[in-house]
């Protein structure tokens, strides 16, 4: 379905006519922080791309705190940027409200459509609540596309070991296992995108699904890796941003992100079935260690949420999980609820839970929302287990632990494919066992 720009945005495009680079900033009530982001974007374009024309576009979701006014009135002083050369072309600044379903995806759609009509070579999108963004981020997100021929630049941050747990425990391992590319922050929020990939995004007709909300990040990453676009990562340092809305609904967010992963998994089944193992994506930027904000976790409350889920959601978990997975999950639950043991999900069990849910969502599309929302207590339980396991670990050790989880997911790919195809599982399935059995099967096939 073709997307039409709002009239004022269309007029602005007709007036500017052309821009080589675009920096898009989606926003909703971010008047406090967006000025800093606009300054960084503006400075980044002027300092690192003085020979190219650029536009900073704010796509706003109807803010009531004068976010748009903050964008347009932000003062940018070039004198302190220590420019290497004088910019040849001015950087324009635009701010428009987008139309359609409220959410980041709808905001991106307007930015991409404007970029396409401006014939932009590359687009960078950055969140409007960033406190740690610097002009270098714009360079790191745009240069691989503008000068090195990449189509998609994903961010790579240093994050606290308990930060980004949806990424660490579900999205990163799943995307890596399915599509064979190691993108460490597939739902990072900051991306660089090339003109051909933008054209591909715009021609798709699933903009008005969960993609319009939290699903946009994973949607963009998945299309890039699944459709064979050139993908890389840029090291941006630490990501510091405003705390999320305390009232935000975790299960709704989980549904949108994980639902998008599972939905795209169905669309790209023909792609991921044939991919084996995984390869690291090229990483640009100078890596350095940074101090991170501490994150407090409440293990008792997380365990309580898991216990409650175990007591009440058996009916749904029974629908979603394979018999062996369910038995092991019940054993975990029994150990926690009846024997008072600390909550512990091993990697293999967690990987099978996620993969079983992916297959169940395909099998029961009508109950998709219920199934994914019923994953919430399991996910919180897994996070609690992860927090306990990594309590005394430093950043590198935690990263190693995540790597082990990813390998577990990768080893279970034959298990996933068998379940996807509706075939019975081989006896004694686990990540290790699956590998051994598959090796045995391959050997038999070779003999035959």
């Amino acid at each position, binding site marked *: 379905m073709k997307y039409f720009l709002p009239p004022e945005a269309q007029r602005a495009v007709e007036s500017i006519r052309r821009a080589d680079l675009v920096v898009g900033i989606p926003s909703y009530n971010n008047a406090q922080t967006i000025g800093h982001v606009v300054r960084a974007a503006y400075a980044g374009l002027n300092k690192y791309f003085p020979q190219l024309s650029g536009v900073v576009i704010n796509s706003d979701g109807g803010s009531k705190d004068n976010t748009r006014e903050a964008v347009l009135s932000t003062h940018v002083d070039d004198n302190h940027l220590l420019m290497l050369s004088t910019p040849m072309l001015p950087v324009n600044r635009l701010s428009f409200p987008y139309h359609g379903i409220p959410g980041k995806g709808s905001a991106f759609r307007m930015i991409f459509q404007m970029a396409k009509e401006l014939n932009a070579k590359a687009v960078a999108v950055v969140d409007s609540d960033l406190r740690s963004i610097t002009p270098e981020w714009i360079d790191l997100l745009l240069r691989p596309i503008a000068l090195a021929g990449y189509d998609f630049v994903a961010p790579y941050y240093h994050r606290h070991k*308990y930060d980004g747990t949806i990424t660490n425990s579900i999205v990163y391992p799943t995307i890596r296992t399915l599509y064979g590319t190691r993108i460490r922050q597939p739902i990072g929020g900051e991306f660089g995108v090339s003109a051909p990939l933008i054209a591909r995004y715009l021609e798709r007709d699933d903009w008005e699904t969960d993609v319009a909300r939290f699903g946009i990040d994973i949607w963009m990453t998945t299309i890039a890796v699944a459709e064979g676009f050139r993908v890389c990562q840029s090291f941006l340092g630490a990501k510091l941003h405003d*705390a999320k809305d305390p009232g935000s609904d*975790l299960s709704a967010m989980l549904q949108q992100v994980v639902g998008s992963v599972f939905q795209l998994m169905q669309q790209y089944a023909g792609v991921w079935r044939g991919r084996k193992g995984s390869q690291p994506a090229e990483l640009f930027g100078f890596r350095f260690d940074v101090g991170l904000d501490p994150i407090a976790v409440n293990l008792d409350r*997380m365990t309580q949420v898991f216990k409650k889920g175990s007591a009440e*959601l058996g*009916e749904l978990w029974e629908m979603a999980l394979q018999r062996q997975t369910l038995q092991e999950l019940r054993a975990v639950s029994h150990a926690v609820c009846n024997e008072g043991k600390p909550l512990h999900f091993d990697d293999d069990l967690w990987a099978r839970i996620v993969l079983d849910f992916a297959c169940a969502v395909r*099998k029961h599309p009508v109950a998709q929302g*219920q199934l994914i929302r019923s994953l*919430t207590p399991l996910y919180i339980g897994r996070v609690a287990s992860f927090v306990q396991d990594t309590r005394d670990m430093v950043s590198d050790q935690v990263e190693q632990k995540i790597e082990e989880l990813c390998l577990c997911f990768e080893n279970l790919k034959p298990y996933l494919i068998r379940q996807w195809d509706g075939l019975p599982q081989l006896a004694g399935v686990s990540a290790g066992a699956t590998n051994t059995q598959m090796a045995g099967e391959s050997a038999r096939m070779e003999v035959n």
Partner: protein
Amino acid sequence: MIQTLEQVLQGVLDRLQHHITTYVPSLVAALIIMTGAWIVAVLARWLIHRIVKGLSIDKFLRQSGVAYMIDRSGRLRATNVVAETAYWGILVGGVLAGLSVFNTDLTTQIIQGFVFLLPKLFMAGLILLAGMWLGQFIGRSTLVWAVNEGLPSPRRIAAAVRVIIMFVAVVVAADHINFARNIFLAAFIILVGGAVLGASLAFGVGAGNSVRRYLDDRRESHDDKTPEPSLWSHL
């Protein structure tokens, strides 16, 4: 005396002969029709098994959750449902056709009743099935929501939602077949009204202090303007 006895016996034999000549052919015809219907029903069931197997109705039933609702193992096959429905439909049709051979007031009434009632019964069955499906679906959504929101007794809340939806379906189905319409409607009004009244009283009597405390806390927290940090903000 003997002559009278002969007349009586003759009368009995005549009546017997009359009954035999009147009803036995009808009975034989009815039996033939019913047997024929049974044979056709068996054949139809066999044929449908062969034809429907290739269609994707099974997939639809599985994906929509209807299969899981009727058969928890999820192994319900549309082929069996369609074939059995056709089998029993033809069999009942055969029995009715067989009965119609007798052409009596009673059989005519039975057939008329059945013919008029059957579509309504079928629709009522569909309404109940839809109610069951909807009740299960919304009940499950409620269960997941209640668990994720940390509400007390999520399963009871979900069960209550299921019961209410099922009850509404029963009332609608009963109304459709004109069966005890007023009783069901009155029961429904009494139940819903009673539930609302009970809940209001319970809330007013039992939760008055809690509500007051909650409102006071809210007012204080607004005054402080320091919202409690979310447990999940880092997730």
